[in-house]
């Protein structure tokens, strides 16, 4: 089960955080800060896994963004890399060659997509098409009724 997922930039700025375990805010901040520093300090040639405290951190860099998942010990690290890649593909399809700015300005959309892919720390849908269909239908529902209230 995934314990949390963080997206952050090369400069160490947090872009998205999704927690599937209950921690007090203070602890979340501490974990985030420490983990970002540790991951950014690793060299590009190193492997994508990091045993960190009691979790297994799987991370991968896409352009300027690091995607970083904290998994439990029994989880398949290589599959987590595939999961990250799937999320990136979905973002890419949704935004049309996604870049960091898309995620900054539409962070809520990035969350919505993640929530259609992963629920409670486990993968819920293995078909890209189904995820995008569900997102599109909900976007439509949103725009029909009250356009412009959010943005």
């Amino acid at each position, binding site marked *: 089960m995934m314990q949390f997922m963080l997206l952050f930039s090369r400069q160490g700025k947090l872009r998205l955080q999704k927690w599937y375990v*209950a921690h007090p*805010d203070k602890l979340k901040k501490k974990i985030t800060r420490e983990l970002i520093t540790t991951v950014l300090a690793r060299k590009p040639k190193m492997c994508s896994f990091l045993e960190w405290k009691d979790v297994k951190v799987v991370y991968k860099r896409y352009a300027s963004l690091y995607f970083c998942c904290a998994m439990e010990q029994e989880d398949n690290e290589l599959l987590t890399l595939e999961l990250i890649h799937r999320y990136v593909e979905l973002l890419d399809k949704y935004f049309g060659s996604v870049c960091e700015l898309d995620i900054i300005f539409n962070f809520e959309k990035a969350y919505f997509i993640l929530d259609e892919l992963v629920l409670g720390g486990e993968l819920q849908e*293995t078909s890209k098409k189904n995820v995008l269909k569900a997102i599109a239908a909900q976007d439509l529902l949103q725009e029909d009724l009250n356009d412009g209230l959010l943005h």
Partner: protein
Amino acid sequence: MNGSESGFNPAFNIATIKQVVNEAIERVRMPTPTRLRDLIRQIRAARTAAEERSVVNKECAYIRSTFREEDSVWRCRNIAKLLYIHMLGYPAHFGQLECLKLIASPRFTDKRVGYLGAMLLLDERQDVHLLITNCLKNDLNSNTQFVVGLALCTLGAIASPEMARDLASEVERLIKSPNAYIKKKAALCAFRIIRRVPDLMEMFLPATRSLLTEKNHGVLITGVTLITEMCENSPDTLNHFKKIVPNLVRILKNLILAGYSPEHDVSGVSDPFLQVKILRLLRILGKNDAEASEAMNDILAQVATNTETSKNVGNTILYETVLSIMDIKSESSLRVLAVNILGRFLLNNDKNIRYVALNTLLRTVHVDTSAVQRHRTTILECLKDPDISIRRRAMELSFALVNGQNIRGMMKELLAFLERSDAEFKAHCSSAVVLAAERYAPSDKWHLDTLFKVLLKAGNYLRDDTVSSTIQIISSAATERQAYGAMRLWTSLEQSAVSGLATEKQPLIQVAAWTIGEYGDLLVSEASSAISMVDEDGVDDFVRPTEEYVIDIYQKLLWSTQLSISTKEFLLLSLAKLSTRFTTQASQEKIRVIIDTFGSHIHIELQQRGVELSQLFRQYGHLRPALLERMPAMEPVAAPHRDEQELDLSDTSPDHTKPDQDALLDLINGSDSLTNGDVEHQPEQIATTNNNTSSNDILDLLSGLDLTPSVPAAAPAVLLANNNVEPSAAPAALLLDGLFAPPATPQPPHPADANERNAAGAEWERAVLERGGVRVCVSARRAAGAAATLTARATSQLHTLTDFLFQAAVPKKIQLDMMSPSGTTLSPQGEITQVLKVTNPTKTPLRLRIRVSYNIDGTPVLEQTEINNFPADLFN
């Protein structure tokens, strides 16, 4: 909310018209708030942190003011902005209630943002949960699948045990929904609910099995996840689900054999996510079950041979397959296939693949050691990898591969690794080397050499118990080995002292000081030439020192400002001993001068020893040779563990101090001169009798002295009278502690410490698990604040247990910190300790659920129990 579907409904339309009118009025009344996009732009435009803070503060103030207004149409925009601000690290808790209002709103946008906010701003610790539980209940009954979806998603992310209990029946109903979109989400919600509250599992069982008959991959994968959790939760459920093995095999077979399906394809592999989940569930179902294993042998072989390995996806599946093959009772040919796959992984260019290979080999090494041994060279090569993750795995695996045949070669590599490794590895690596050397040492000499090398290379990272265990080994060795030890250690001591590196190698200095103090006569005598000092590289770098030179080096170390007090205590006592080992008058005199200087040392303990020892050069000179005689061979101690020593002082320290106390008692027997309160600090300890072996040693030592009762009776009194130290500040026990106790003995506890411990409460202890000679005891002790320290001790009478794992859980209001266990392998008469720190600010009654897993002769055992009879005043 779907107006077009509901057809003509006057009430509905009037409500809509009202809402539109209200919104229009509000838009006129309130100025339109900053758009989310504009706020993000403003924040990004800020050039300094202070500037950013001021933008954020201004916006937060504005958002707070709008929250005070009721029913704003802009609420969702404001919450979205707040969520962005929250991500930047600013406080946003004041938005929690607003999220709930959004969730309660009929608009989909409001709900979507409201639930998002709830997931980010609330977690199960918040009090608003009762409110959100009601909202969730409503939305779980909605007609719009996406509203149900949002509610399920939120429940899955932030379900507290109370919420889980309240909403479990709704979730169970939704698992049976015909809608795949809802079904899959409900299945994962059930998974989370069971995780939080395992008791709720029963109610989900009937609905779960049918999930595997679905075609939809989302439902299949979530169903498999749910079943996996259930099987791991209870052995009964595991048995219940054994019958689905054929279904799982069929699904897996269809995935492999089915042609290209674009929807689920990942680089030519059909739905790797689902494949991996199924493989994992098969592993759990096939473990220790020959029949189930038989049923999955073929499909595993098929997956292992047919999977494309050029891409990460293929390797992902192979990795999972290998784990399953190794865990179930698979055919031997299949196991060979699996180990070969790992061998290929080890040679892969991709670091990630190499990492999982090491990881998997470590997990399979106990199943098939010889197969893993074949890859030894490659594994040792990985010790040199620049990547810390790979080095860590390689180190653990290397230690697992050490045996009687390869110990010399392996140790050479591991010692080299120890020398260059990072600080965080040194402690672990050095104790593993010490353990391996103890187990497989081909000869005494080799064992001693290895220990000396560890002392040299691990420096101050060495665990304290290695010092005492090394001393014990030297003390019980043959005389020529003792001389050899003294000579080797002298070389290291001299080099460290001359090069100024002694501060980084204090454990080495301590062992060297003890050994040279005991066997210094052998070090400087002509007889030592007979002992070969040629090392593995064929070099003999030993130069026999003169007595004066040894003393000079001691002086240099003793006067160094950086050595720790306990290292200096070792050195000082050792120096005193040398006065009876060295023969010339000049060196005796030199030693006396150095010891005298400590009579005015700034540190009270060293001063005390200085004063006491210098008395042995004056009026009590006749006692010196007998008092400073060589220690008798020490008996091996039952591996005193450091954690235990640190945390259970109340248990262990009396054992250490009793001998001295008794010796003292013996000496002052019948004396009236000491009734002035000096020994009253620890009356209860003096009163206790004991049969401790080491105390017998010391009593033997004393009985060997032919002393008339009057001399010892007078000795302490006179010594104290001569002593400038305030008697009450120096417990009388210390007087003889320095003379008789081996230097490794911790100092007797200061009276104040003893009082503190008493104040901390008596220790509570219960045996909580006892089966087949395996026993787990848990003891609890109060700590400062609303906290307690629990110590779990596992012992095994007959069997050696491997992979011992201790897990614990506490109610959510209590915080649990598990320290690292003392080991994972439990040998008969050995002990594994695990310390848990429990913080309980709310002082809820402590319940502790523990789970213990281990292997006996390769058979895994899992036991769990719950302890709820902790003393009520544990946290007061």
